[in-house]
């Protein structure tokens, strides 16, 4: 059951027990599915690996982009992550969900790439992509908002960026976020909380633009 809230138009979802059971069953099915694909990929099945890449490409690219802040580097890091996962599929524990295991590898790959990039050059703040020209149309407003959001995200510590993206974008639980970040669950909760608060604060001036976009 979805409910639209009055004050800020946010959508919040109240789960009923039957919905929780459904989502649990779906998660179990997904776990088994991913595990089978991982086993097949480990045995050399290219199609199985391709299917895993298709399933997790979006997540991996977003997590890498949250760490690196630019699309090209993020794609390179996400690719590094997938290939590292392929090489290490023998170490994957099939009793654990595949997503957090993969996202940990991807975030490590992105962190490595960020470290190397820092050695080469001082880190660049994402460039201003504010559109010039006549009054804001929907697309330009969307771009401005996205750029502002990326800039706000870039001001957060890396762990908080990953935490909020995994939790609020990818739908990971706090336990799963903690597993990806290798931190206690309480720390993962705190990271999500602080990241949300900072992003909300940074985007407070964009309420009007959000309404224009909707």
């Amino acid at each position, binding site marked *: 059951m979805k409910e639209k809230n009055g004050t800020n138009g946010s*959508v*919040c*979802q109240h789960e009923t027990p039957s919905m929780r059971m459904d989502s649990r069953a779906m998660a179990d099915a997904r776990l088994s599915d991913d595990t089978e694909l991982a086993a097949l990929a480990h045995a050399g099945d290219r199609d199985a690996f391709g299917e895993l890449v298709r399933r997790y490409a979006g997540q991996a*690219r977003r997590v890498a982009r949250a760490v690196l802040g630019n699309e090209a580097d993020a*794609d390179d890091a996400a690719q590094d992550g997938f290939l590292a996962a392929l090489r290490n599929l023998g170490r994957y524990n099939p009793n654990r969900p595949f997503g957090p295991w993969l996202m940990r590898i991807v975030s490590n790959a992105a962190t490595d790439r960020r470290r190397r990039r820092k050695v080469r050059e001082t880190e660049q703040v994402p460039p201003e992509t504010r559109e010039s020209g006549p009054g804001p149309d929907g697309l330009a407003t969307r771009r401005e908002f996205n750029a502002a959001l990326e800039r706000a*995200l870039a001001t957060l510590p890396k762990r908080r960026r990953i935490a909020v*993206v995994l939790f*609020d974008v990818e*739908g990971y639980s706090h336990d799963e976020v903690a597993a990806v970040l290798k931190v206690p669950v309480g720390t993962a909760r705190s990271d999500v909380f602080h990241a949300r608060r900072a992003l*909300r604060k940074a985007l407070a001036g964009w309420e009007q633009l959000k309404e224009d976009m909707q």
Partner: protein
Amino acid sequence: MKASPFDHRQDRELGEALRSALTGQNEAEFVRRVVDAAVDIQQLQAGGDEWWEILNVWARPGLAAAAIGTIAAAALWWSGSRGPIESSTALADPLQASVEIPAAFLASEAPDLNEVLALELGN
């Protein structure tokens, strides 16, 4: 009700905004690129075994070679330890052989130096 950072549920509004900001373009091309790169890795993996498998294959020949080496080294050491005895025997042979001693050296008195020199030059 405003979304609170304390909320244990997903903040869908923020999530959607982040998704829109962070999602890259052309996902199909990215997938193809990763799968192509993976083919090279899988070919490498198919061609190369793990290190312990390689060691396992080489274990028996390695042990045999080590045993042969040990035997050869022991044989060399043993023959080396016998070497000096044989060489001293070899040197002793000419000394032990019967040699005709010149009469000058058998005399009770010291021989004249000229006779000794003459004997040596004569030989």
